């Protein structure tokens, strides 16, 4: 079975060493997803696989046959940006922009995770539904580094999309 990326099917690579990240960038030509550390520490390569965010650098492309992958290109485009992309623009949630595709993929999935009631290390009551506090956002986004330090504006953008005042 092929892998589906942003609703388009692609054949998987012959070489099993190819990471999902390299496959997206070099084989599928989707260079929005960025390679930062290539070791799962920075989050620049974050994409959604079957709706769930993962580090694409730590996954082999051949293991993803039949999976549906959404990259930053699948979330929105320059003419039709997603709500989260617009919020990052509005709040200046970046400086150099290199970590931004990963931040936006991560943030988009993170709001769904909170809505689904998944707890985090910042969740005080494990048996209650988690609330979208600043502490929750910072903990849940800790897998996405921004070396320009745009964190405050990233949190503001996420709160904006979630319908809370920044």
């Amino acid at each position, binding site marked *: 079975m092929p892998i589906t990326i942003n609703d388009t099917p692609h054949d998987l690579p012959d070489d099993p060493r190819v990471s999902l990240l390299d496959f997206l960038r070099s084989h599928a030509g989707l260079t929005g997803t960025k390679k930062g550390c290539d070791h799962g520490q920075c989050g620049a390569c974050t994409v959604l696989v079957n709706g769930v965010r993962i580090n694409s650098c730590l996954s082999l492309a051949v*293991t993803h046959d039949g999976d549906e992958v959404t990259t930053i290109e699948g979330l929105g485009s320059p003419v039709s940006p997603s709500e989260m992309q617009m919020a990052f623009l509005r709040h200046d949630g970046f400086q150099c922009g290199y970590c931004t595709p990963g931040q936006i993929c991560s943030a988009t999935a993170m709001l769904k995770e909170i809505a689904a009631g998944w707890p985090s290390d910042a969740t005080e009551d494990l048996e209650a539904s988690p609330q979208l506090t600043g502490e929750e956002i910072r903990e849940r986004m800790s897998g996405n580094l921004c070396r320009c330090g745009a964190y405050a504006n990233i949190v503001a953008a996420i709160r904006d999309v979630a319908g809370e005042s920044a």
Partner: protein
Amino acid sequence: MRPFDYQRAERLEHAAQLAAGEDTMALAGGTNLIDLMKLQVETPQTLVDIGRLSLGEIADDGEGLRIGALASNTATAAHPRVRSDYPVLARAILAGATQQLRNKATTGGNLCQRTRCYYFTNIDQPCNKREPGSGCGAIDGIAKLHAVLGTSPHCIATYPGDMAVALSALDATVEIAGDGHERSVPVREFHLLPGDTPERDNVLEPGEIITSVTLPAPVGGTHIYRKVRERSSYAFALCSVAAVIDMADNRFTRADLAFGGLAHKPWHDPRIADLLIGSEPSAALFDKAADLLLEDAQGYGENDFKIPLARRTLTAVLCEATGVEA
């Protein structure tokens, strides 16, 4: 990454047969293994992908809970019964890694993750775990993350995980399948001390695959996972304590404790429960518990701080559980 032969296991029996092959490793979530393959620390000739096996279920097993080997760390931590009946496990999982990693990482893979010792992950350095007989760079080198309990002259690496520390406090059991056999191993006996064979992290034999982890019936009490690390998120434990504590008439009736970041395995010392159970909580008693825990502790320079840190972390946990002022 070195070239390897990729095989997909369709059934458990098939996986065990394939995994028994020479120089073969099983791939589940891959968040540690693929990283180590990139670093050429792991160079398997054959990779058996077990990720599509039906081992992801989390289910009641009559008394306790059976967590499938391929249940993601996220699924386990978010499971209603884990959150209500085994909160120390949910807390421990959530204290580790990042959401992206927990979404991919599995129960079995988490147990089998390898040390983050800098000498182990750098193939230009000596390491008896990676290359038996090459020496240990950490003993006289950079050893901040390293063990203070149960070390050997060959290896002072730590087991890096959080989940297994909680599983040790909960006295969980690891269910294992091999080619034609099955066995159960208490999680407290699953990981090994380095001794003369630091290349062995745990009791798994070639071809054996973890199928699930079973938790005993819930015991109630106060569940705490306290992790001390160098930043407030996404860092390995310098020291952690998993605790399941219960009291009656101001005396301990249960004191199941396990420690992370201190040894080559989640550390469990049954003498601590023996000391605490039946006694009234007090700062003096907690000090005695720490004395027991640390009586054979040995620092290696950079990690000397872990000995007083472990004492303070244990004391803080016992104070939190009992309301005693430190």
